[in-house]
C-alpha cells in the first residue's frame, strides 16, 4: 500500500483568485509522480473537506494569499477531524507570517510553505510525512 502514488488535494479557499502558485506546485507534484486533484477557485472549507473525503486524499493543501489563513486552515482541519479524517495532512502555503505559521502548526497543521520555498523541499516533505500517516491510519 505504501507504494501507491501519493494523492494530494490542492484547493484555493475563499475569495482569492490567485492560483498560479497552486498550479506550479500541482505540476511539480505531478512530475514527482504524485496524483494531484485540483479543485479550482473559490472553494468553501466544507467543499474542500467533501472533496477530500470523496477522493480519499492523503493531504489537503490550501493556497491562501488573501490573509484569511487563520480562519480557513483551522476550519478545514476542524471539519476533517469531525469526519474522522485525522490522518489527512493539512498543509499548503501562501503569504503567511512566521508567527501565524507557528500558531497554525500548534493547531495541528503540517508544514506551511511561504514565498521562496523550493519545490524539492515540498516534494520531500510529502514523501516523508505521508507514508508515516498512511501506516498510522486506522480506517
Amino acid at each position, binding site marked *: *500500500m505504501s507504494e*501507491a*502514488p501519493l*494523492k494530494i488535494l490542492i484547493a484555493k479557499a475563499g475569495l482569492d483568485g490567485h492560483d498560479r502558485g497552486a498550479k506550479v506546485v*500541482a*505540476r511539480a*507534484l*505531478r*512530475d*514527482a*509522480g*504524485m*496524483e*494531484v*486533484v*485540483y*479543485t*479550482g477557485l473559490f472553494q468553501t472549507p466544507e*467543499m474542500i473537506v*467533501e*472533496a477530500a*473525503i*470523496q*477522493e*480519499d486524499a492523503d493531504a489537503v493543501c490550501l493556497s491562501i494569499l488573501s490573509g484569511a489563513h487563520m480562519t480557513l486552515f483551522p476550519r478545514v482541519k476542524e471539519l476533517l477531524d469531525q*469526519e*474522522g*479524517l485525522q490522518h489527512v495532512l493539512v498543509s499548503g502555503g501562501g503569504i503567511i507570517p512566521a508567527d501565524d505559521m507557528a500558531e497554525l502548526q500548534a493547531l495541528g497543521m503540517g508544514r506551511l510553505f511561504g514565498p521562496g520555498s523550493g519545490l524539492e523541499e515540498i516534494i520531500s516533505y510529502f514523501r516523508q510525512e505521508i507514508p508515516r500517516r498512511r501506516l498510522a491510519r486506522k*480506517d
Partner: protein
Amino acid sequence: MSRSAQLVERILQGDRRAAARAISLLENHAPEARAIAEGLAGHRGKSFRVGITGPPGAGKSTLVDGLARELRKRDRTVGVVAVDPSSPFSGGALLGDRVRMGRALEDPGVFVRSMASRGTMGGLARSAQEAADVLDALGKDWVILETVGVGQSELAVAAACDVTVVVLVPEAGGAVQAMKAGLMEIADLFVVNKSDRPGADEMLAQLRETAHYLDREGWKVPILKVIAIQEQGLEALLDRLESYHAWLQEGERLEEKRLRQAALRIRDLVRARLEERLWLDPEVDAVVQENARHVLAGQLAVHQAAINVWGTVRERLTELEGI
C-alpha cells in the same frame, strides 16, 4: 467481521467515506481488494451506467456537471468516476475534473471520484469499473464514467457501460477524425457540444450520414446539439438517455449487453494475469530477447520469432500453473 466486510457493510448503508476508501484499496490492488470485490458482487447492476468519452477539450466534464444537476432535478442520485491520464514520464497525474464540476459538487446527492489512468495494461478498465461497482453499491441511481477518448483502454471503459455517449465539438475535425479514433463504433448517442461555434451544422450533417450506417439492433443513434456551459440541450440529452434506458429494458437487451460486458471483463482480467505472469517471467523474457536479436540480425522473421516464444510460453505455463 473482517475489515473488508465492514467496509462493504458501511458502503451498503450509504457511507461515502467507506466508499472512497474501498475505491482506493481496489485501485491500489491492496491485499483487501479481492475480499471487497467479492463482497460487492451481489450488489452491482442496480445503477444505470453511462460512459462518456471524446477528445480532450470537448467539454466532457462540463457536460457531466450539467447532466448530474439535471439528474438531481429528476430526483436521481449520481456517482461519477472521472478518469484523467497519468504522465508516462513520472507516473503522476493532474486530475482537474472537479474544477468543471463545481456546481454539481455542491449537491450531497452527487459523489465524484477522480482517477488517474496509471497506464497499466488493462488496469484502467478494471479500476474504473470497480470504482463504478462501489458507487453502485453505495446506492447511486446513475453512475457516470468519464474518460478522455485517446486510447484503447479509455475507449474500453466508456464502452463497458450500459450506454456510451461520444462527445464531439465542431472543431474536432469532422466525423472522419472520430472514425479514425474508434469513437464511431462505440457510440449509442452523439453529442455535438459547443454547438454555437462555426462548423457545428457541418459536423452534425456528417455525423448523421455516418450514424445512418451504424447497426445498433434497431436503436437509431441520436445526434444532439448541446451547449453544456449554457445548459442548453441537457434536458433533451437526459430524455434521450432515459429512452435508451427504457429501450434496453425491453426484452432481454440490457441483460444481453451486460452479459457480453461481463465476459469482456473476465477476459480482460485473465489476459492481465497472463501478461503479468509471462512478460515478467525471466525465462520467457530471455527467449523474447534472444529472438528479438535474431530478428534484428535478419536471421528470423517476426512471425517465426513469435512461434518460438509461444513454444516457451506453453512450457512455462505448464510449469507455473501445473496445467
